[in-house]
């Protein structure tokens, strides 16, 4: 498969996702709708800091952590939820499956839309949060090129986590939801999101160290405030970790797909 053809397929899938997600209302309403939830989730966390009147550094820690956590949720759901939605809700999975597109690429493309869509609520909630905790915008020296690189790198491990859940979704629907919720909840606890994960007692801190999210979120914090302006060892570590996760996830997904196909589970509808 050539690069051009690959990009064309991905763009088509992103466009398809947009059409599916946004066709129920006008574009203005849709943009407002996708922004409300992440913004209020961020406010819920920011007001923990406001209630205690903590130091501003910690407010910034929560602000960036929660704003990007929403983006992670969007990306993971985009990949994993598509399988459920196409099969159980729209009942289109069998048609998608016979398309001349690798099934994992199909999920990656569909999920990418949600990851891109997440930028708007991220930006809006970040601005609102910054105003509430008084982060002066003049003090932010955003390293755009590295931040964009980190954003793209983030999708690698987010896809990996999404594919791992999707692998499970082949075999279950009811418990698949529990796994999605568990993953998102555990990322909030272990992901260095609203408190430094070093505070976790042993051996819970080891889980945090094994997750790419910890480095990824820290890099975002440093790149937005401008404390980091070069490609350092943290990036190398993140690249290795993210691609390792992706390779393992793809292998597991392929194997699960094979088993599901053999057992006739690809288009099974359980109406859960």
């Amino acid at each position, binding site marked *: 498969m050539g690069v051009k053809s690959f990009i064309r397929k991905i763009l088509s899938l992103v466009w398809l996702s947009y059409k599916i997600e946004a066709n*129920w*209302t006008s574009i203005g309403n849709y943009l407002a*709708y996708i922004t*409300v*939830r992440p913004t*209020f*989730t961020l*406010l*819920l*966390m920011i*007001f*923990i*800091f*406001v*209630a*205690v009147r*903590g130091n501003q550094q*910690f407010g910034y820690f*929560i602000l960036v952590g929660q704003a990007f956590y929403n983006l992670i949720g969007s990306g993971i759901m985009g990949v994993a939820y598509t399988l459920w939605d196409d099969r159980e809700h729209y009942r289109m999975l069998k048609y998608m499956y016979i398309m001349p597109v690798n099934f994992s690429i199909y999920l990656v493309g569909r999920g990418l839309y949600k990851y891109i869509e997440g930028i708007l609520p991220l930006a809006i909630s970040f601005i609102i949060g910054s105003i509430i905790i008084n982060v002066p915008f003049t003090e932010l020296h955003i390293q755009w090129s590295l931040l964009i690189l980190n954003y793209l790198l983030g999708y690698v491990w987010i896809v990996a986590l999404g594919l791992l859940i999707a692998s499970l979704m082949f075999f279950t629907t009811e*418990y698949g939801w*529990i796994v999605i*919720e*568990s993953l998102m*909840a*555990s990322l*909030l*606890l272990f992901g260095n*999101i*609203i*408190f*430094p994960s070093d*505070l*976790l007692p042993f051996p819970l801190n080891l889980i945090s160290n094994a997750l790419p999210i910890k480095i990824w979120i820290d890099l975002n914090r440093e790149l937005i405030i401008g404390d980091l302006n070069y490609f350092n060892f943290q990036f190398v570590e993140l690249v290795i970790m993210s691609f390792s996760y992706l390779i393992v996830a793809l292998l597991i997904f392929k194997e699960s797909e094979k088993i599901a196909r053999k057992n006739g589970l690809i288009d099974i509808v359980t109406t859960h």
Partner: protein
Amino acid sequence: MIKEILKVAYARAYVRIKGTNRDITHYIADVFLPLFGVSAILFAYKALNAPEIFLASAAIGASMMAFWYNVLWSMASQFYWEREHGNLTLFVASGSPLTGILLGMALGGAFNMTLRASGVLILTIILFNIKLNQAAILPTFLLFILTLTSLYSLGMIFASSFLRFGRSVSKVNELLGEPILFLSGVYFPIGVFPLAIQILASFVPLALGIEGLRELLVLNKSMNDVIWIYLLLVFLTFLFSFIAIKLLRKMEKEGRSKGTLTLRWE
């Protein structure tokens, strides 16, 4: 008529309780999953060196969150889903009063969520060594019941009015989720809000309930100190129930004449 409503409510509540609790893995998931989130919040408070009362308040608020989600997803949108699955037609054709079905949904949902919220709260108390005022058990219980009656009455209003919506009902639910949790101050005291927002929050049963529970269990206040919360919750229960019954009758009448009670795939 009241006897009939209660019989239908019992039947509907039975299905809801039996259906939700027949698989223990769901109960385990419903108790342990929120624990991850609550733990993260409590660790954040610890990182901020917040006084113990903030941790206790957040533990109470977080355990009450499940009720709000239950009201949205298992009350508000329930009639919509019943219609999609074809059950609403059967309910109406059976002659069972819809108010009884709504009441049963509320009772069953409240019971299920109480089992889960208690589990979350007990585990949080054990894990984070949280101290609550044990002497306030009785007023707390009364306040908790009033919070549930007003909250589920609000859910009954939603259930009646959500019949109007098509498939956008899930979007409406999503939009109502976090803003109300924020307004209710699930993780922080609503005293941090400006006065106007605090007044607005006092019409939200969840906000009133959580605030009352905090005052009794964390700040060691007496029932007399928070009597206004009890009175407001009683008032809201009557008001919401009245509106819900009126709305339900209107929707049923409209649905019958316009044929929308059986309309699917909108």
